[in-house]
């Protein structure tokens, strides 16, 4: 009798734990970029060159990864909450779509300064007409300084 009670209790506890886990897993939101550890830390030009030279190898390496890139801020598009990193004379850029938590900070950034951006690499658009881009999503600004 007593043993049976223990078993029932154990089963109940397991069910509650499973339900709790399922509920939390179902409602889990994406981890904020600020809490993610960078898988790669490199300069904007290195990242651009790697993709430019071989998209498929670079996609395998960087896609879905958290990357910190440091480079020249080429352009700010506040209306799209987008930052462009890279050489201003080149048509190649890193397009960083800003995370909703840092939207306000973009306006204070000045082009032609060096910035460090952390974000999630979502791909590479090869485009002869418009210029190729490495895309970072949920980007946050780690540091910016005047060049």
């Amino acid at each position, binding site marked *: 009798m007593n043993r049976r009670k223990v078993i029932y209790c154990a089963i109940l506890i397991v069910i509650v734990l499973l339900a709790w886990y399922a509920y939390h*897993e*179902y*409602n*889990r*939101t*994406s*981890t904020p970029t600020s809490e993610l550890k960078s898988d790669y830390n490199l300069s904007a030009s290195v990242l651009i060159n790697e993709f430019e030279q071989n998209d498929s190898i670079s*996609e*395998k390496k960087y*896609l*879905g990864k958290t990357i910190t890139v440091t480079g020249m801020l080429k352009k700010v*598009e506040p209306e*799209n909450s*987008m930052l462009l990193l890279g050489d201003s004379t080149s048509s190649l850029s890193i*397009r960083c*779509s800003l995370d909703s938590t840092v939207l306000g900070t973009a306006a204070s950034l000045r082009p032609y300064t060096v910035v460090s951006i952390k974000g*999630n*690499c*979502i*791909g590479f*658009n090869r*485009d002869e*007409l*418009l210029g190729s*881009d490495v*895309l970072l*999503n*949920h980007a946050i600004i780690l540091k910016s300084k005047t060049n």
Partner: protein
Amino acid sequence: MRSFSSPKPIDVYLTYMKTLFLLGFSFLLTITAGAQDKYFTKSGKIRFYSKTDFETIDALNKSVTSVIDTKTGAIQFAVQMKGFDFKKAAMQEHFNEDYVESNKFPKAEFRGTITNNNTIDYKKDGEYAANVKGNLTLHGQTHEIETIGKVLVKNGKIAASADFILALADFKILVPTLVKDKISKTVNINVTCLMEPLK
């Protein structure tokens, strides 16, 4: 000795210069007109949603590249599958890993034409219906899509938008048996792009 009454060489020279200037000017015009035929965006939006009694799926991608050639009506879209944001992280992971397999097929592309392009005046502000037809490549599968979109011309910019429905089976996107009855077999796609002239 030449007389002053017939300054012919100068006249000839002037006409020559005029012709050259006009030729050059018209050449320049052609170039600029050619470039202004194209409009583009790199921050277009694609939203997709599907709804059943069990589950609502809603995701947004804000990094869509699109180019439209107003002269020919050719229109193109490119989107990175990993750029779709879901409210629920588990859903986003399943979408990438099990449904669209974004590691294997990172990009989706649409190449098509506006079949009634001659009825749209891209130089005049207004709202126009655009019949779009073309091929969508997604999950490694290419399928023909046809829809009626909207082209809004305002202050030299184009706001293009369209809604259409995709059947998951057309793109060999498999729904696991366990959730087969809980997830819709079609998804609604909404595209909105604010396009600027390409200079």
